[in-house]
């Protein structure tokens, strides 16, 4: 009796599982390619998923989308994501992606390489009007995929009060590495931490650009981490850290450079234009000025961060989606966004209007001319995270070892040698 019952039970559960599996797989799991219609007739309903920076951005995008929908005779539903990356991942896996969504330049190559994105950027009016560095950030295998929404660059933020407390004037704002060191020493002598520097590639990478180096070749096909330029940059940052002229935010009890700066724990920080909003909200009394980053041995250099309007390759409303993006990336619409939530227009034709309205932001906008975008290659996420880990230990690990490690990992990820 006993063994028989057990076997029956086992058989039954296996049968049940099989039944359930087939039931579960019955629909939706065998979509043949070509099944997705290119264009559906009737009024289009666009699903737009945005990784919003806050209420202001959500409201502004919603308003702009409604205006477009009313003019185009379509509907547009804007959804702010809680966790854009994870929600997009699930939507792609479930074969039900939104029609239009934000794509961070950091993730762009991952999405483009798996064919999730529609390469529509050529159909947008005057694609050459977008800053070249932004176009490069959204170009994969020679194709410009999606229209940049807006962008940010890094600049040097200086605390006015701490500056004058150390007896420094506007003329002392450093424009070269040497000046950065000497100004730092003066601040240190006055008992002030000179620089709060984020401990990731997104800040320290700017020094690599100033030294003429970067992690990958411009086309994203080769690893170029282990170069004398990068070594020089890391050696320099290492000296700053070792002499305590620069400190990581965590050492200053802050989550990021802007927080350390706002709390008055450092006289300078290197951050992007998002710091304006953060300081206004959390530290409204801090007086600061914005300057271009000090130039390195190979001249000026900064990093740019950007997001594009991605259109799903599976969207049934591609034409409407492109018309929507067209409306969102018009110069005057970009200026409206700039006023609403403080981003910089991605079109060069909007530059003069922007600097006229926000003259204090000129150093950020000017950075676009010599900015380096994020690493534009797929499968680099864990490699870059590992590099960040190395940068956190920059004072105790030799920069050469660190760069060799990134070089090796990048080569493995890119499949080159």
């Amino acid at each position, binding site marked *: 009796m006993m063994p028989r*019952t057990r076997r029956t039970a086992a058989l039954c559960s296996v049968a*049940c599982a099989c039944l359930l*599996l087939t039931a579960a797989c019955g629909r939706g799991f065998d979509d043949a390619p070509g099944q997705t219609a290119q264009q559906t007739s009737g009024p289009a309903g666009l699903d737009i998923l945005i990784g919003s920076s806050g209420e202001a951005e959500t409201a502004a995008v919603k308003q702009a989308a409604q205006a477009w929908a009313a003019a185009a005779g379509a509907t547009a539903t804007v959804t702010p994501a809680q966790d854009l990356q994870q929600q997009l991942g699930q939507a792609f*896996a479930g074969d039900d992606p939104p029609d239009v969504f934000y794509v961070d330049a950091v993730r762009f190559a991952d999405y483009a390489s*798996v064919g999730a994105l529609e390469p529509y950027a050529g159909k947008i009016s005057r694609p050459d009007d977008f800053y070249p560095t932004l176009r490069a950030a959204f170009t994969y295998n020679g194709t410009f995929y999606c229209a940049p929404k807006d962008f940010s660059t890094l600049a040097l933020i200086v605390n006015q009060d701490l500056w004058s407390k150390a007896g420094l004037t506007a003329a002392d704002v450093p424009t070269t590495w040497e000046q950065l060191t000497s100004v730092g020493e003066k601040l240190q002598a006055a008992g002030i931490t000179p620089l709060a520097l984020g401990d990731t590639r997104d800040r320290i990478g700017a020094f690599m650009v100033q030294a003429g180096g970067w992690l990958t070749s411009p086309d994203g096909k080769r690893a170029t981490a282990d170069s004398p330029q990068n070594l020089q940059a890391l050696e320099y940052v290492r000296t700053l850290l070792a002499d305590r002229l620069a400190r990581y935010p*965590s050492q200053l*009890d802050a989550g990021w450079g802007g927080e350390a700066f706002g709390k008055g724990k450092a006289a300078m920080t290197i951050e992007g234009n998002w710091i304006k909003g953060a300081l206004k909200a959390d530290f409204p009394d801090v007086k600061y000025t914005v300057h271009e980053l000090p130039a390195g041995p190979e001249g000026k250099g900064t990093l740019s961060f950007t997001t594009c309007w991605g259109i799903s390759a599976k969207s049934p409303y591609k034409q409407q989606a492109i018309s929507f993006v067209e409306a969102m990336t018009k110069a005057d619409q970009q200026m409206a966004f700039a006023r609403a939530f403080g981003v910089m227009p991605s079109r060069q034709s909007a530059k003069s209007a922007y600097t006229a309205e926000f003259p204090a932001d000129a150093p950020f906008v000017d950075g676009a001319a010599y900015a380096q975008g994020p690493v534009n290659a797929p499968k680099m996420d*864990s490699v870059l995270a590992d590099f960040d880990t190395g940068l956190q230990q920059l004072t105790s690990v030799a920069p050469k070892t660190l760069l060799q490690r990134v070089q090796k990992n990048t080569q*493995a990820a890119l499949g080159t040698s």
Partner: protein
Amino acid sequence: MRPRRPGAARENLAGWLFVAPVVIVLGLFMLAPILMAMWVSLTDWNGQGSPFRSGVPFVGLDNYSRLFTEEGLARQDFMTSVRNNVYYVAIVVPAQTVLALGLALIVNARLLRGKTFFRAAFFFPSVTSSVAISVVFLFVFANSGAVNGLLALLGVDGPQWFADSRGVLHLLLGAAGLVDPAAPPQALTTGGPFGLSWWEWLSGPSMAMTTIIMLVVWTTSGTFMLMFLAALQDIPVSLEEAAMLDGAGRWGVFRHVTLPLLRPTLFLVVTLGLIATWQVFDQIYVMSQGNPAKTTLTPAYLSYETAFGGFEYGTGTAISFVLFAIIVALTLVQRWVLRERRS
């Protein structure tokens, strides 16, 4: 085999009918997803469309071999996360079990006043959201937070808890003068299993990890205290009194009467502790995200990061199945250790 009782088949059918709801729910929401995930771990699925299409490349055990035999970042990250978690489990499970038992004994003591108050106080951390408590700990252990403030009163310059990636074992070895952490001996830094050097394996939990360990021991001991308390209240007082009459001291009663009777509960607590500690995720996600220097990376968090961060769903699910195997193996070992020994 005995001949079948008449009507047995109908009884069987009725039985299956009665359990059908549970079987269906478990099958649909547990077994089927697990089997699907197992399939994903054998593929190089890129997250586009369904993983059960014909175009999804089948790679066999490649995702698993990348974690164990192939030199590279995937193995290094995975082994680092396993190392971190081994130290985490090795400290948290004994500590929370002993603490929970101790608290239960205190609350169970017949002479204690304000029993309800203490019971509630000890249990309180367990019912609070782990995310909320993690955030509170972030403040308490901040560089200028309460803990470092207290240490400063004692004249100790507290560490930068969440930014400190130094291993505790390294620090202890250094303090004992056995090795110099800045220049570890050649014998330890060259070679070692699975791509990490012996020196890296022997790091111990980092300072950042110790704060998470403290947090978890504190929050979970309340739940386990409740289990021990229930078991303690089941032990007949007469048994303990009989042992006392036979001349056993307090320790003797505890060691030879109370503890053996608690064995099933001990097994439960240690098993639950093992499972929960190997799966630690939310504290890591909220407090450190694997930083500093990957010393709080755990397999559960790495699996999430690999799948959703790096789009390597195959490797991500492979990590979770290895984690599953580790938990099952350790539970079996522990069952064998705690088995009833009867000669």
